[in-house]
């Protein structure tokens, strides 16, 4: 029972990682987050390999984990080159800007301009029109609502 239960825990975690990675890859629009989702699916496979490795008591699973990690490294190098190229050429990480890659028969899902509104800017203090300029504290000047 022990061995099977341990294997099942590993299989379940691997399955969850794979499924969540699939959701991320299907639904996100950021190229980098999509790539990280693919890496998440690879993590699920790694956990699977580790579980079966312990179950059978061999080290073949670890060898395969090393292979998967090496191929993920190669994939990351290619993906980084592609994404840098795309960012330089298209000004952005949005996959929507790459929709010309699709077949011409398929209609575009959304136009580039059809994006939701921007984040509203932070409310800055209103400066008086006359007199000395007020001293703005440093934390207000350095305030960044994002990242």
């Amino acid at each position, binding site marked *: 029972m022990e061995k099977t239960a341990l294997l099942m825990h590993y299989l379940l975690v691997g399955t969850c990682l794979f499924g969540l990675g699939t959701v991320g890859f*299907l639904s996100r629009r*950021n190229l980098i987050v999509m790539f990280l989702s693919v890496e998440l699916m690879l993590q699920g496979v790694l956990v699977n390999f580790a579980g079966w490795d312990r179950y059978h008591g061999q080290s073949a699973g670890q060898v395969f984990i090393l292979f998967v990690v090496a191929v993920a490294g190669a994939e990351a190098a290619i993906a980084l080159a592609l994404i840098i190229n795309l960012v330089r050429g298209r000004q952005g990480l949005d996959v929507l800007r790459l929709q010309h890659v699709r077949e011409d028969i398929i209609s575009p899902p959304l136009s580039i301009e059809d994006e939701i509104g921007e984040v509203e800017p932070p409310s800055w203090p209103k400066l008086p029109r006359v007199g000395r300029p007020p001293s703005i504290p440093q934390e207000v000047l350095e305030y960044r609502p994002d990242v």
Partner: protein
Amino acid sequence: MSHCFGNMAGKVMETSNLVLILATILMAAGLWWALPWGKQRKRSPGWALLAAGLAMIWALIPPVGSFLARSLITLMAIITVASAAAMITTTRPLYAALWFGMAVLGTAGMLLYNGAEFVAMAVIVIYIGAILVMFLFLLMLDNPKGMAAFDRESWEPLTSAIVGAVLISLSTATWLHRTSISGRTACAEEGDKVSPVVVTQTVDLGHELFSRYGVAVQVLGLILLLALIGAAIIISRPLEPLSDLKDHRETTHAAGDVDSTS
């Protein structure tokens, strides 16, 4: 081993199927609610639904022996899966990268628990040390303002949430029914004990890697070399700018209109 699978009680299978279906619905609803849609709203109900669905599947599998082992595995699994869920639902790519690093750490913990100490360290070094840092650099390079519009909206959140939940529960069902709880206790074998972790497993791994899988290691080195060359070639040829893309789109739209009217 096939005789072990025959004497499963039908009742248990039915209950676990029902639990799986309910967990699928809960997970799909939770993922759908937690994914960004472009509108600001509270994400916590989605998180709660997703956690409830995952906990229901978790309750289906038999517990590991000792309390310490059980709590360790549960802790690492919670860290891993929660980080993965946070990664795919956050609207900020920088935080997504950091959550991915957390998920990798949880995975490395699970590998370490299984006695794969070298592989665990290799995963940490390669994923967090190399890949993640590279992509953090790229994020900083491209999108210093963060919170872009396309990050706060997702493609078809409902469909992808359903696909993910069904994928999780279907692939769980494949092995859950194989070694069902009642089926395994009926004919538990003597060999069904966890083999102790051998500390010198790295030595065995090295021996196996360079004797039995020697050719595969060579091929892997070749793949890495080719990826390096390919990345250099891709980087050295920039794409055409965005204005050409607009022209291309307009021409294709015009052609499509002509086709539809004629």
